[in-house]
């Protein structure tokens, strides 16, 4: 009995480890994709913030993260996603929840939104999966 329990525990732990590892790889890939996109804005003088938000994006689910921005800066929020996620979108909302007009870049599994806030304060960045199935995503942002 004890041997069976030990065996089952080993199988369970091995399975958990594999899942965690594959998630990690997928998020690393998503982050690389986001950083590649953000790198393009670096050519225009944008600095990439050393911090990011990664997770799993699903169809019909709306993901929100709060950021605090400064009037006077310009920002780009870049998202990369991995297969089977096919098309992602990035939107920005102000502190009262109003949608903010942004410049947009959209290339299937990568998307970015850029704007210059008129007011300093809290904003909300949303990430949505528009096409495809559940996959990893990663958000980074740049400023200048």
């Amino acid at each position, binding site marked *: 009995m004890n041997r069976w329990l030990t065996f089952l525990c080993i199988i369970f732990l091995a399975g958990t480890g594999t*899942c965690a590892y594959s*998630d*990690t790889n997928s*998020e*690393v890939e998503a*982050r690389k994709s986001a*950083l590649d996109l953000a790198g393009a804005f670096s050519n225009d003088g944008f*600095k*990439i*913030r*050393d*911090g*990011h*938000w*990664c*997770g*799993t994006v*699903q*169809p*019909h*689910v*709306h*993901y*929100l*993260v*709060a*950021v*605090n*921005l*400064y*009037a*006077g*800066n310009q920002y780009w929020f870049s998202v990369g996603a991995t297969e089977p996620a096919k098309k992602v*979108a990035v*939107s920005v*909302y*102000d*502190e009262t*929840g*109003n*949608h903010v007009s942004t410049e947009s870049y959209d290339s299937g599994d990568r998307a970015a939104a850029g704007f210059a806030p*008129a*007011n*300093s*304060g*809290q904003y*909300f960045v*949303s990430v*949505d*999966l*528009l096409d495809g199935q559940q996959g990893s995503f990663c*958000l980074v*942002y740049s*400023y*200048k």
Partner: protein
Amino acid sequence: MFGCNHAREQCPVQLIFAGNNTGISFRFLLAADIPAGNFAQMQIDWVVIRWARLSLIAVVGIISAASGADPARLPADQLAKAIKSDSISIPTPGELFAALEKPGKINWSGQYRAPMPMTYRNRAQIALNLGGLIADGFIAVEAKDSQQVKNIGSDIIKLAKALGVSEHVLGRSNSINEFAEQNEWDTLQEELEATQNEVKSSMQSHSDQDLIILVSLGGWIRGTQVVSGAILENYDQGSAKVLRQPALVGFMQSKINEISPELRDEPLVKGVSEQLAGIQKLVSFPAGKAPTVDDVRKVNDAVGKVMEEIESKTIAK
């Protein structure tokens, strides 16, 4: 108004639970494992911020839109559930200084302060001062003062050592010196950010999570002191607008409320926390309205007072 084909307009109200039980997970990451001085070849170092707490945050952070909801406006209850994390919701001093730099030339070297003692014994005080010192590093980078960057880099490492951070962090000192020698200011800024994140990552792995918010807070207080001081020297409305950050102060206050009761009750932490409530009111200007000179002076006085306490050798336990 977004197009009607937007996915989130079609979905029913639902809350997706995150965590191991559903296979959905979120991680807040700090790029703390970036090889010193090589931002392009960064590797991911996972910083899983207290899984229990993270799971709770993730549960409420994943939000689905109500069927037929207007995507042009998100309701307050959805905004309240947005993810907030130290690694992405708290701006770095570099971001603050970048915004200030736009309207005119700032006398950055005029914002230096005298070297602080490296002999603090209280861990909370060291963490708060470490954050402030990192902000000083950003100031030295803005001033393009390589010697000052090297001095501050050395002090950062001394304080970080006092907190018992990993040897990996200590390797940053060499790269900071190297980039300062070569006047690589953009890379130095990245290096300072990476150093700050690596210190926090090391604290995380040493079960010093409660100190992480104090590093961020120390950096914000010192940054705000410098920025408000610079605005007072040469007031203009555009610059003054950067001081509006009520939600940020509120977030830091809420994080302090989550730390252990023992740490929260230490005289220094308690004092700083109590004063944050007043500072939050001072930086809560209406959107679109620039603070007056008098408003800026009040902010400068308030953060200056907190900074004095953080630096003081007598107040900490």
